[in-house]
């Protein structure tokens, strides 16, 4: 099981700023190990962020997103104490969901 994400959601002006740091290898499939064998691709393909159950961001990623991906964006309508939930799915079908409270 992958490590938990670090999620920070805070009110900035009239919108909510969400910053997410995920823990993932993001292997491209282009690298070779010391024996010259290709290392299979392993990366996050889809990220969904929801606020009170409503999607505020949907992302599709390729292997060019950096290792331990970082993501930041803002949405309107958040209030202190609301929950922000982040889910990622990788190309092996592995999934992880974490949530944070807007502070």
């Amino acid at each position, binding site marked *: 099981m992958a490590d938990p994400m670090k999620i920070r959601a805070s009110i900035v002006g009239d919108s909510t700023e969400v910053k997410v740091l995920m823990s993932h290898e993001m292997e*491209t499939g282009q690298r070779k190990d010391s024996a010259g064998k290709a290392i299979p691709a392993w990366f996050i393909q889809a990220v969904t962020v929801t606020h009170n159950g409503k999607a505020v*961001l949907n992302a599709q990623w390729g*292997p060019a997103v950096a290792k331990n991906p970082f993501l930041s964006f803002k949405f309107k309508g958040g209030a202190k104490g609301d929950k922000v939930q982040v889910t990622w799915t990788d190309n092996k079908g592995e999934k992880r969901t974490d949530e944070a409270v807007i502070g």
Partner: protein
Amino acid sequence: MNETRRTVLKAGGGASLLTLLAAAGWLVPGTATAQAWNKSAFEAKTMDETMKAFGGGAPAQSKDIAFVSTPDIAENGAVVPIGVASSIPKTESIAILIEKNPNMLAASFDIPAGTEPSISTRVKMGQSSNVYALVKADGKYYVASKEIKVTLGGCGG
């Protein structure tokens, strides 16, 4: 007319229907909001191929797309921060493309109403390259580019 050929044609037709359904997000297991991963777009090697996979024409150059907190020179290609902000009304999605990576498309973000058309993330770059920010707004595609010089490549090694 040979029978095998007919069977093959039939099978082909069926498969493309499945692909269409998957593209429309009908056959996605799990959450209903998640879209199928756009495989052809992520495997495209040129701008034209990527645009074809997105189902759009050639994008128009736009001055309303800005790169924010994006360096001119990246010391480490494995971690290049890229921020894209669009001030085009009705921005629906933002994609980041890197010209000289093995596959151009790095990431694409759907922006639902209520979310600001401004995102930042970190990508890998194999070498110095033009980076494109592709914005879809009101059904049309717009693009802006920026050259980022990479001192140390982020692929291989």
